[in-house]
């Protein structure tokens, strides 16, 4: 899933380590989410969005989930 985490981090001048600490996860998880290897769970996505003061859909791109059958992307 595409995200704007890297852009937001750069804009706020925050390192992956700081973001990870802020949302209670590891730096590796943040890296994996940024490079689209791993899809964050709803609670983690919420925490990340809240950290930047945004809504989930402003940080994560849900366009892949808008297909007709409603199944969307799979992990």
């Amino acid at each position, binding site marked *: 899933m595409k995200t704007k985490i890297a852009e937001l981090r750069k804009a706020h001048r925050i390192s992956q380590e700081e973001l990870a600490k802020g949302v*209670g*996860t*590891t730096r590796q*998880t943040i890296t994996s989410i940024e490079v689209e*290897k*791993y899809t*964050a*769970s709803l609670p983690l996505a919420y925490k990340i969005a809240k950290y930047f003061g945004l809504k989930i859909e402003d940080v994560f791109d849900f366009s892949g989930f808008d297909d007709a059958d409603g199944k969307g992307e799979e992990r």
Partner: protein
Amino acid sequence: MNREEFRISLKKRMLFLRIFTAVYFLVFAAINHIDLFAASTPQNDFLKGFISGLSVFMLIFLVVVNVKATKALSNEENFEKIYIAQTDERSRYIKEKCGVGVVMPLSVILICVGMIAGYFSFPVFVALVAAGNFQIIVCCVLKLYYSKKY
């Protein structure tokens, strides 16, 4: 699991670990004083060496885990690190994918049963220990693969 629940769980685990370490140390000391093998054959010597080596490794491992857990509970920064490492969703997902929670205890049981069986039959010991080690290797390879994938 929130921080306080994790702290309570860690304290419980530590108590269990300390009791287990003490019992393990007593059993280890007793086994080293009793010669369970009737004769000194190459197979018996190998088995004796294997059991001694693994026992020492286990003892060191238990002491290290004890020290780590004690440090985590005494220092808030260390506790935070362990809490994040234990509750990180990606790590948990990878662990679930490679079945660490099932494979590791099963492998330990296989190796322990193999060591006990070794006193009666050497081929059974070799088969069980090999199966246990194979499971651990497969689990580690899968963990490495999924760590790269996710």
